[in-house]
């Protein structure tokens, strides 16, 4: 008897057919991007390597992930807020028990989670930090001019995923199937736009960092 318009019908649609569509678009888009990047290759370098590639590459993955003092001095807000919400997002995504169950259901792997109230607190902090990034972007004269529609789209979808998750966990939208359905829907939007926007950095950032370090290492430059 249910239709898309009733809460349970909506939840089952987002958990069923729509999830399949979203994950298929995500897989297609992401593999197309990664395959293109990796298969394109680089011009062969015939010079004799001065040092190894792997270790400097991995070292750079770490050094470029941690904030360096220079960047911190120039843009403390970006470094601090950026780190806070990225870590918060990852904690909520990977260490919240229902998410671990989802990953276990999809890939069969699991790991220990954190207590729900802790994840709840982290999520609240993440929301505040994300809101602060938007305010900063809108008020910073340079960033405001640099920002494109894509930047705002990515911010909105990311914020919606965290916000609906927070609202659903704290049961602030009723009935609950509607709240959970909205959260799953935002996560699906996130998955769908991920391969086609700057959100791809989730997968390419570390490849790029490794590549830079490996290239330095080969030339014997400090990485």
């Amino acid at each position, binding site marked *: 008897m249910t239709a898309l318009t009733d809460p349970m019908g909506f939840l089952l649609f987002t958990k069923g057919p729509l999830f399949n569509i979203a994950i298929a678009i995500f897989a297609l888009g992401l593999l*197309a991007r990664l395959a293109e990047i990796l298969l394109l290759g680089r011009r062969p370098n015939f010079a004799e390597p001065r040092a190894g590639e792997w270790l400097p590459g991995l070292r750079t993955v770490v050094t470029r992930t941690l904030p360096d003092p220079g960047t911190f001095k120039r843009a403390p807000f970006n470094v601090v807020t950026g780190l806070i919400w990225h870590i918060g997002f990852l904690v909520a995504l990977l260490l919240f028990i229902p998410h671990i169950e989802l990953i276990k259901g999809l890939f069969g792997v699991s790991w220990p989670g954190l207590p729900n109230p802790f994840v709840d607190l982290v999520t609240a902090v993440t929301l505040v930090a994300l809101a602060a990034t938007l305010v900063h972007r809108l008020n910073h004269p340079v960033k405001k001019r640099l920002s494109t529609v894509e930047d705002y789209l990515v911010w909105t979808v990311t914020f919606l995923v965290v916000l609906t998750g927070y609202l659903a966990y704290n049961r602030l939208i009723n*009935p609950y199937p509607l709240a959970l359905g909205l959260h799953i829907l935002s996560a699906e939007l996130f998955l769908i736009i991920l391969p086609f926007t700057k959100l791809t950095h989730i997968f390419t950032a570390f490849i790029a960092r490794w590549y830079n370090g490996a290239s330095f290492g080969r030339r014997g430059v400090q990485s």
Partner: protein
Amino acid sequence: MTAKKHSVGEHLRDQGVSRRAFLKFCTASASLMALPPGLIPAMAAALEQARRPSVIWLSFQECTGCTESLTRSHAPTVEDLILEMISLDYHHTLQAAAGEAAEAAREQAMKDNFGNYLLIVDGSLPGPDANPGYSTIAGVSNYAMLMEAVEGAAAVIAVGTCAAFGGLPEAAPNPTGAVAVMDLIKDKPLVNVSGCPPVPMVISGVLAHYLAFGRLPELDEYHRPLAFFGQSIHDRCYRRPFYDKGLFAETFDDEGARAGWCLYRLGCKGPSTYNACATMRWNAGTSWPIEAGHPCLGCSEPRFWDAGSFYAPLSVPTDLSSTQVLTAGAAGALVGGTVATLARRTVETAAASRQPVTADELEQTL
């Protein structure tokens, strides 16, 4: 038939129900429906005076579990009292009459009480477009019988998830074209008392409310009485503190299960299920599924049979197709590979057809 001419109060006294038991029933019903205590005497007075209504109970595609729920509860209970309050003129399972006599009783009751009787339905029924032969009574299709009975009904109560939402018969692939009562009846007051089966006191509570106040209780968007379906199992669950602390049973016999921790990871649908089990419990308040160590199945919600495995956590997608994901990934890799190959070919073609120019040659062109 003469019994119906009595008021509820007179009938209860005839049956030897004490005034004290009656008032206890009124108090219990009022508190179950979250009515203010001041309304208890009013409810008692109204019930006392109320004429015992004729009730026609139609059983369609059902398993009789709902009737079992109402009648097999530990006696003597409020459910016994409510059966004394109504004049149950037609009910397959409970009536003594059979065959033509039974159908005649139904037709007589409908005629005598036209416009005033309560119609209770349990079970779904093949819809108007489905083959009516999937479920008939005395050669009459469920659809025709419902439509005929609803004509003179004052209100309709759909008892159980099958009647309320279609339930098991309506689950995919729905071979009999089953529909819920509310899919067919739009112009009569209708209450859904969902659950598989519903909590018996919810059925009696709705009847008591109707008798005492002459109208149906306040309903949610699924036409369920808010007093019983207003809060989720999760919000009223005595294991909720374990969810909040992040303490979960991971199997049915691990340390967490023995310590009574939250059953979310074992597939509990409590967070998305609205019902009164957590507060009223079952078998005269003895226990309820979660207390017995089993996750909530979500039986009072629409499409609960099609909402994925009973033992898969609520956050897990219902029908993920790994072939589809792998195919999409492979197609993506193919697209990416093609784009990369084309790009390389462009570079190679450009390199092959390159015409070197020296600085001197360039200067000569100036």
